[in-house]
């Protein structure tokens, strides 16, 4: 009974949001990338490099915000790599993603050793400080959200809103959606398909980097080998489950986070692995249920133009 009331508590809500942020950011990155027609299996690796970048940036400048910028930069760089491989050199997109994951796993460990002399674990760095927003904190009921809150929550909500708005209300978004479905049609009306794809994949990398940094300098205060722990693939699943839609991706991330939060906070005796499995089982059921008509971009992975 007390569990039930806890379920609807503020604390629970915050826990869910906190768990959802990294997955959600990466999922939206995946949405944007796949909407341009490019498969990205390397989200896991991009997040990992972002996590590392966040710590490295903070370490070098003693400023966590610099860490965040570094993470975004690193993520964008890897995004550029994936983009060049897939667009210019027509690599098999799945294989490229796998390669990026392996590369990222190895590179982050090599670099932590180079900088901090310990294989896979960095030194401690400052975390991104929580903030309290003066006026908004006085609003009844929801004012608590603005007290001692990680800026990431607001950044994430902004990303969701902006991504959704751009995709469905602006020219850029319309053209992006057209490219993912029928690049030839977009080409014939004069849209520069290549440029859109490059930008989309780089933005994906940047968002993944941003999400990765959350894991290292907000939820934690250092980089630990393999700290993304499969969240990148969960983000992939969230994108599919959410229907290749920024809002949907974020809501799907919340659903996945909900399962994890339930297990952590309510000490219900379900084995950890089943909770971790949930996102994938749900996504698989959704895929099977919708059958061949999964709502993904029709020309996803097709570079024949």
């Amino acid at each position: 009974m007390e569990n039930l009331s806890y379920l609807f508590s503020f604390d629970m809500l915050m826990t869910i949001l906190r768990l959802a942020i990294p997955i959600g950011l990466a999922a939206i990155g995946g949405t944007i990338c796949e909407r341009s027609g490019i498969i990205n299996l390397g989200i896991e690796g991009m997040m990992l490099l972002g996590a590392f970048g966040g710590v490295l940036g903070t370490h070098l400048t003693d400023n966590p915000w610099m860490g965040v910028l570094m993470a975004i930069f690193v993520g964008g760089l890897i995004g550029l790599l994936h983009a060049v491989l897939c667009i210019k050199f027509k690599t098999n997109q799945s294989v490229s993603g796998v390669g990026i994951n392996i590369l990222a796993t190895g590179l982050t460990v090599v670099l932590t050793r180079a900088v901090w002399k310990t294989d896979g674990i960095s030194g401690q760095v400052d975390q991104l400080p929580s903030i309290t927003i003066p006026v908004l904190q006085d609003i009844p009921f929801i004012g608590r959200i603005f007290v001692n809150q990680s800026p990431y929550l607001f950044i994430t909500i902004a990303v969701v809103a902006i991504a959704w708005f751009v995709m469905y209300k602006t020219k850029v978004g319309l053209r992006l959606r057209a490219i993912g479905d029928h690049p030839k049609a977009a080409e014939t009306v004069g849209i520069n398909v290549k440029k859109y794809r490059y930008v989309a994949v780089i933005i994906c990398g940047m968002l993944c980097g941003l999400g990765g940094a959350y894991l290292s300098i907000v939820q934690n205060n250092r980089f630990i080998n393999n700290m993304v722990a499969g969240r990148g693939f969960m983000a992939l699943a969230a994108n599919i489950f959410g229907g290749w839609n920024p809002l949907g991706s974020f809501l799907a991330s919340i659903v996945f986070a909900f399962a994890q939060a339930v297990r952590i906070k309510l000490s219900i005796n379900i084995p950890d692995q089943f909770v971790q499995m949930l996102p994938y089982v749900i996504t698989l059921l959704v895929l099977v249920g919708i059958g061949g008509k999964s709502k993904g971009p029709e020309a996803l992975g097709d570079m024949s133009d």
Partner: protein
Amino acid sequence: MQMNPKRRATLNAMLSNLLLSMAAIVLSLIVAAFIMLTVGYNPIKAYLALYDGAFGSVNAVSNTLSKSIPLIFTGLAFAFASKGGMFNIGGEGQLYVGALASTAAAIALGNAPRFIILPAAIFAGMFAGGLLGGFVGVAKAKLHLNEVIVAIMVNYIASLLTSYFVNGPMKAAKSMTAQSDLVPSSALFQKIIPKTQLTTALYIALAAVVIIYFFFKKTRAGYNIRVVGENLFAAQASGVNKTMVIILTMGASGAIAALAGVTEVLGKYGRFIDGFSPGFGFTGIAVAVLANNNPFGIIVTAMLFGALDSGALKMSYVAGISANMVMVIQGLVILFVATPQIVQWMNKKGGKKLGKS
């Protein structure tokens, strides 16, 4: 030399593929060396130590061979599916369920004699992997789902499921770590070289290579798979049942990948240990692509990756760089080899720089 022109053509093709693969490796080593220099390590020292660690002694060589065994299986599995035009990215999940199934079967058959327990365990593992692969095949053939996405979901579900079992119901009593009971010794592969990890599983791997080679060369089933991969319409017009081929090919691929798990459990560890695979399923993709899906080539590329893994420790010891540098090299190889055009492009640029024609 006077040669039959068609033979010359095939040889030329093979040669250019070989050159392409070698170029990918060389480029990766060069880029990796560059990274090492940037971070402050000596690449020459590192590579020498790497080589020494991989091939420098009998122990080192047997280590290298032993580490290449699971990669031969996952590489074969990927290549097998590729012949049919399919992408089996589910090797990781398939090897985990294969490992678990064979462990469970071996433990369950406890006191049975070796000639029953070992084949049964192997078969159980292959069956489990085959089911997983077949599931992805059904999703592709009947539901027209993208096999990559489905396989990734199944990978995680399968790995987590096995992790659950080994942390719970199958956990060895009184054990601190997440591992199963020891498998009865009658179910273990024997060591070829004592005090190393190299077992007779190597023979199984080599046998698999030969069997698969002849499967595609001589059997109708192999022919049908190749035809489906080459021209689906012509295949169907000739009477091939597309659905059956897709499902069975993915199933067989899963069964082969499962052997990677089976041989690790019954050969190297003697029990199922949670998370024992450092990503064999994914590295196997690189092994196959680098070998251009040729079974015999896979032996070579698997050994290359095995050598990287086995020499890593010595390299980190001697040159001070993290052992994970080999993962960087592996990642680079995958990126380079997946793109023949990169290699050609760089060859052109490199050739120009060196003043070659």
